[in-house]
């Protein structure tokens, strides 16, 4: 049994302590915005925000998140910041198949929290653990830059 905050709500998981957060989110809580790509921390599709920091949910055992806060795209999409990122991504067609995008959006949030006015290098480092096989990244990098400008004061 693991108690933690999931998108602002206190929840209790019945999963074993050595199960992956990724599997529990998808199978027990039906939080399917968290995607399973590689299960080895390489692709970032399963990214969530754990206690304010971006992590791969495939790399976190349930026992390590007791008492922690987990934000997934399902929770994040209710925020004003999401609306700014959503618009920015759409404005430059930064989404193609969409599989990487939940993780990519949460990575974008973490880049902007750390630095509301990031350089291109900061942005590229911030999404360096999030693979996208469609876009070639340039549109995503551009979108995060646009969000930084349009969302002035939000981050």
């Amino acid at each position, binding site marked *: 049994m693991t108690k933690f905050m999931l998108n602002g709500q206190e929840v209790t998981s019945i999963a074993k302590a*050595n199960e992956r957060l990724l599997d529990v989110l998808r199978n027990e809580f039906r939080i399917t915005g968290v995607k399973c790509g590689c299960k080895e*921390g*390489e692709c970032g599709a399963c990214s969530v925000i754990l206690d304010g920091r971006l992590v*791969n949910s495939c*790399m976190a*055992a349930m026992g*390590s998140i007791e*008492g922690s806060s987990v934000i997934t795209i399902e929770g994040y999409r209710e925020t004003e910041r999401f609306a700014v990122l959503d618009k920015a991504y759409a404005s430059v067609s930064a989404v193609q198949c969409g599989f990487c995008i939940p993780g990519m959006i949460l990575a974008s949030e973490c880049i902007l929290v750390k630095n509301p006015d990031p350089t291109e290098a900061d942005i590229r480092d911030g999404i360096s*653990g999030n693979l996208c096989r469609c876009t070639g990244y340039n549109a995503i990098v551009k979108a995060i830059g646009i969000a930084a400008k349009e969302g002035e004061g939000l981050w």
Partner: protein
Amino acid sequence: MVNSYQATSLKEALDFRAKAAVTPYAGGTDLMIKADENVTYLFLNKVPEMKNIVEDTDYIRIGAACTFTDILESKLTPAILKEAVSHIAAPAIRNLGTVGGNICNGSPKADSALIFLATDSKLRLVSSRGERVIPINEFYLGRKKTALQADELLVEILMSRVGLSNYYYKKVGARNALAIARVSFAAILHLENGKIVNCMTAFGAVSDDIIRRADIDGMLIGKTIEEAKVVKEDYLAAYDREIVPIRGRISAEYRKTVCMNLLRDFLESNGI
């Protein structure tokens, strides 16, 4: 059935460690790649005594459960460690992965362990029986084998506060982010009044263990740069004999050539 222990203090962690067969879990980024359903983890990620970075008169003391992000954000972190850690994986992995896990996983490719070897850092190993502080080069006993006893935990890494500023570091990987080192090399050349008072080098990802040969580096200690030039070729020849790379995804010949090129570049960048 108990399948995990969650420690909230070091004492609690050591008690669990002493009474049960557990796998210490700090960040999980190595362990979870091959998640084992039958394993019993001892979770250390919320043990406060293992999460601090502090300094005393001699050392910077880094808690073994500090994440790579904690290392990057601390003002106390020596530049050589900061640079190496900034090249580890990607932000999401750096937010979970820890230095203690990197060391205890026992891989010769461990990016932060290389730096602790190259700086002759010490490890504070604690059990409910007591504690010992050992040089990190006594910790590694061969491929995936360490000196950690079944009831011990690595609690802190002790880095020298002085003499580490003139460093050389290169990680050769196939890409920028999420790269596993093909060869990595770290070195310190500490000069005082024109004399080499310390020379420390370490080669990672080459052999079963990270290679740290204080006996060979000793050839340069006590010499001026000019005197070091005289023994340069003997020094390089000694390493050329002693580095015997293992073949992995890439050839042993490639690894050897890169090692020797980096070693030479380290010397030449210091005027030797």
